[in-house]
């Protein structure tokens, strides 16, 4: 139904703009309908302008900037329709230290109402966790797990 889609679109758009601004101080972004005259079939496009820069096509953004825009879009949807849990597999790989901190703040926003599994190689992301699972594979080609609550473990090598 068109009305429902438009409502969802406006809610997600609003959330997307807020999350984007938290990730890109001074920046602005929005979602637009790819075909505003044909709402029944229109797709959704993303417009994003980091702070101080000129609005250009998404492809010109840097690796880290693209990650942040994609995270803003995903998290905007998560806020509209929370899932009981999320699995994020190395989504912060392209981020510098400052943006990693901003990503971690995003994680804090959704952790109250949902469980989050984060696969990561980054120490600072591990520090946010309530519990840790270590995965290892020995010469027999079989994966095994070690579970550790964060209070019991020192984060040594990844």
């Amino acid at each position, binding site marked *: 139904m068109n009305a429902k889609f438009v409502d969802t679109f406006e809610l997600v758009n609003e959330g997307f703009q807020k999350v984007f601004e938290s990730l890109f101080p001074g920046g602005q972004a929005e979602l637009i309908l790819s075909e505003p005259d044909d709402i029944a079939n229109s797709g*959704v496009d993303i417009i994003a302008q980091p702070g101080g820069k000129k609005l250009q096509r998404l492809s010109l953004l840097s690796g880290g900037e693209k990650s942040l825009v994609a995270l803003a*879009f995903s998290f905007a949807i998560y806020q509209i*329709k929370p899932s*009981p849990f*999320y699995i994020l597999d190395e989504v912060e790989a392209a981020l510098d230290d400052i943006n990693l901190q901003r990503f971690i703040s995003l994680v804090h926003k959704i952790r109250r109402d949902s469980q989050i599994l984060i696969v990561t190689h980054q120490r600072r992301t591990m520090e946010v966790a*309530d*519990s840790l*699972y270590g995965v290892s594979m020995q010469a027999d080609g079989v994966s095994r797990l070690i579970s550790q609550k964060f209070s019991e473990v020192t984060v040594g090598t990844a």
Partner: protein
Amino acid sequence: MQLKSLTLRGFKSFAERTILRFEPGVTAIVGPNGSGKSNISDAVMWVLGEQSARTLRSGSMEDVIFAGSAARPALGMAEVSLTLSNTDGTLPIEFSEVTITRRLYRSGESDYYINNSPCRLLDIQELLSDSGLGKGLYSIIGQGRLEEILSSKPEERRILLEEAA
């Protein structure tokens, strides 16, 4: 609804029966390259009904069964079980705890269970359809797949929104 545990047996590199118990909040999964972290994420997608082998980095569904290693022979079956607490009644079923199980044999035969009662894949999909864990699984972002949101077609992004409606 909360994740309680995930059990893998013969799924990809998890040849031996392995149980992850889940706490509230954030769980970090860490380890060396190739140890099996992303395979855990694949297992969750698979038990929730993922039908595309490609999404699981596989050429065919049979690839998810432990293929053996230098030291061990291949197994004949992969099985994953996901246990959820349902005390808030999110899932339309009369149990406070729900376990979904999926099994695949090398013959290509599949078995599905809800709380140890055999069922069809369709029953699992219907059970999950309103929970946010159903089709599309937008809540799982696989390794290297984050940027797809930006390079995907506008129509595909619309579908993501509609599933969140």
